[in-house]
């Protein structure tokens, strides 16, 4: 916990550092299957997100084309 403080550290700050160092030494654990679970969810989301994006892009393109065609026809009149 080195610091670039220009002022000297107070005894209370020193004690706080000790307490936080104890906390830092104690690591919360996670489920051993954590990575596998994340990858499973990523795979599932990718399977949904990619087709959704494709459909969205397609709908947008069709919408733009329709707007362009009708816009041009209206301009012809």
């Amino acid at each position, binding site marked *: 916990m080195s610091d670039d403080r220009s002022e000297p550290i107070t005894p209370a700050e020193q*004690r706080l550092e000790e307490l936080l160092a104890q*906390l830092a030494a104690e690591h919360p654990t*996670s489920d051993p299957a954590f990575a596998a679970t994340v990858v499973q969810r990523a795979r599932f989301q990718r399977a949904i997100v990619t087709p959704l994006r494709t459909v969205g892009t397609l709908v947008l393109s069709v919408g733009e084309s329709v707007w362009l065609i009708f816009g041009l026809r209206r301009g012809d009149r």
Partner: protein
Amino acid sequence: MSGDTASTAPADAAYVQATLRGDLRAFEALVERHRDVVVRVAARIAGRDEAEDVSQDAFLRAFHRLGRYRADASFRAWLLQITHNAAVDHISRRRPEPVETPEAPEDPERTVARLPAERLESRERLARLERKLRGLSPDARVVLVLRDIEGLSYEEIADITQAPLGTVKVRLFRARRDLIEMLRRNTYDWELPE
């Protein structure tokens, strides 16, 4: 406390590229490499009970944004920025925590591990300290966790929190001061000199 990422950065970048080409084993390797720091930071910002959900959320957000990661930057700092945002979002969606009720002793069912008294006391003291940390504002808590517990540099913290360097230093100063005050007001003896 914090391992420097300089030696792991090229490997991270390679795993990112492989993931972008569709290799989910490469993404799994990225998760394995960084899960400890992500879970630790999530636990200390959002609380232990929420750490796993916040961490999963952070990794999934990262997965969908991998295309935006710049290979010349630290992957860990980029990931911790996402973790920080996920944890702060999580806190803001949650009901405010009562500040004093967590002082109640831990559920005896959860501490039946029959640990030696000294270890039990130490564990309980750390649990109390974690709860006190959660009494700080999210901004203050984040800088204190990243600096004083994870040992990150001010520059890294500025990147992660997207705050100017000066703001990070001021927040840290106030966070330490506020935590000392909170511990002094506490009935538990933290052995803090006046």
